[in-house]
């Protein structure tokens, strides 16, 4: 999950999630960075509306309540 936490850290700090930034954060945490994975994560996150995903993640309990019959 290191790549995800690092990405979320950048996102919540309102920094761009690019290879350099992500690599910096991961290295600072002492993570040996795998370049292939780095590229893949950065590319995949570009396709995702992170704010939307996070909003839904928090919305869960409400959804459940609504689902209760």
């Amino acid at each position: 999950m290191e790549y995800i936490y690092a990405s979320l850290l950048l996102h919540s700090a309102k920094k761009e999630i690019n290879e350099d930034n992500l690599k910096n954060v991961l290295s600072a945490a002492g993570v040996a960075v795998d370049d292939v994975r780095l590229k893949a994560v950065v590319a995949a996150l570009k396709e995702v509306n992170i704010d939307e995903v996070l909003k839904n993640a928090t919305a869960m309990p409400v959804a459940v309540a609504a689902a209760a019959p």
Partner: protein
Amino acid sequence: MAVVTQHKIPKWKIEEVEELTQKLKEYPTIVIANIEGFPADKLHDIRKKLRGKAEIKVTKNSLFELALKKAGLDESKFKPYLTGSNAYIFTNMNPFELHLFLAKFKLKRYAMPGDKADEEVVIPAGDTGMPAGPILSTFGKLKVKTKVQDGKVYVLQDTVIAKPGDPIPPEAAPILQKLGIMPVYIKLSIKVAYEGGVIIPGEQLEINLDEYKDEVMKAHFNAFSLAVEIAYPEPEVLKVTAQKAARNAISLAAEIAYITPETVQAVISKAMTKAYALAGAISGKVDLGIQVPQ
């Protein structure tokens, strides 16, 4: 003329009308029950159960009608129900109470072909007292395991032959009767009830107590929720209000990642939930080397 006619009425009838009139004046509630085909011994059981709470009279409809007139009651209200054989119940209970009381004790009868079981029908293990003979094949049909002992049919184990609601196998009826098993309920069918000028048709007397329990519970729950919402100062209420307030505080703390020993769990859970949501969103495209819970 009227006087002459009255002389022709047998004395017992006059006395009976007199008695009915007295009861109509004495009791506020009158219930008319249909006893067409109702076993007399069961009516006797009911009479016993009602002792001290209500009186039952079985009488001719015409005599009851006369008594209504003499008691000054509006007999037209009762007219439609004064057909067939009726029992008249006089009581101080309100009609619903009487109905609930009658529903409380179960009267049972033997099964007849075509009956459905009102309760589980079990043929118990042991000596049936029935001589072995053609009856053995009936037991066989009912899948009841038997043996013959001293010339009598002996059932090997308790055997259920019908569950509540199941039709009772017609061939079982004589066996059940021999064993004294009465799996069918009967109840007095109330046509109408009268109290204080109000006529209540029998079908309206049905009360589902569970519904009332649910309503009481719901009413209380509504009241409790409302009380919690306005922090109505009762300890039981404030306990929940305080809990709600605390939960609000923790949620707010989690939202702004305000870390204290009380909130750390909520804050981390929230961060985790978000992390897994994001991981889930890209897990199809990237091998993150982790298992994302779905």
